[in-house]
């Protein structure tokens, strides 16, 4: 259950950015969440609500944008999307050992603020 600490850090970062931009209130937070981030969505949403209390984010909406896993295939020399987290091979040529280029993100993508 590390989602609460993730939620707290997310709210801290969002509030800091909102204040720096003269916001009175944050309406929406957009989070890019990689399929291999190890973060459970429901737990994060629960933690988010708690972490927003008494901040500019109170009452805001957390929108999660899923980021699928992409690896760079060493043989095809391009980025490909494996067929699943339990099939981490290149779906085109079957090569193993591709480096991960997307899928671990826990990224504050954008905020919708009111001034």
């Amino acid at each position: 259950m590390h989602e609460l600490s993730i939620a707290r850090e997310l709210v801290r970062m969002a509030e800091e950015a909102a204040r720096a931009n003269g916001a009175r209130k944050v309406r929406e937070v957009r989070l890019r969440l990689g399929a291999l981030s190890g973060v459970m969505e429901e737990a994060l949403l629960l933690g988010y609500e708690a972490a927003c209390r008494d901040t500019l984010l109170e009452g805001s909406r957390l929108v999660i944008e899923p980021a699928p896993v992409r690896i760079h295939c060493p043989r095809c020399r391009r980025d490909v999307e494996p067929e699943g987290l339990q099939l981490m091979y290149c779906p085109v040529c079957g090569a193993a050992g591709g480096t991960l280029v997307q899928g671990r993100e826990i990224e504050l993508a954008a905020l919708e603020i009111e001034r």
Partner: protein
Amino acid sequence: MPARILEIRRSVLNENDRRARVLRAEFREAGLLAVNLVSSPGAGKTSLLVETLRRLSSAHVPAAVIAGDVETDNDARRLASAGCPVRQIETHGACHLDAAMIARRLDGWNLETFDYLFIENVGNLVCPAGYDLGEGLRAVILSVAEGEDKPLKYPALFHSADVVLVSKIDLAGPCEFDREAALRNIRAVRPDAAVIETSARTGAGLDAWLEHLAAARCRFLTEKEAPPCV
């Protein structure tokens, strides 16, 4: 009321990643490989580590340990019996270690006197996955008693492994451990991970593990820090 969209694009673990990079550079400078050991509770991290330390110590290879546990210092006391410096992190409920906790435990240690720093993470197959501790090697331990499908159930963690240690292989028979299925499942999640089958009780696989450590340390000390992932 005018609303506005602000583009941010910053990792929520940015601060931890930054601290971990600082630690990694310090470790490299000191000639030390940090090894992050992760597994579920009861997979045999401590036993495997005690045997690893005994062997390193009889070969006069200096090592230190940071042991994380939710409560108690039982593991730290077991590890200290192997004769090397041990520091304990009691997380009091937190389910993983982070780079700041490691940095705080290094105070007063002369890192240059160690070849290895073993970090025994909190027993957990979920939360430690995203937290870089500045390690140069991440070892995920899977015991034969746990079931062969653990890698499929916890892909985020198994995918982050540089090496998977299958532990307690002396119990493979009584546990009806399906070795082929386990290896297949590890490869499905992390096709290029090294796999070493070990037993802390019989000593099986420990020579291979020590060789793997030595090679990883050499590689780590000659590598350059990769640019931060976005």
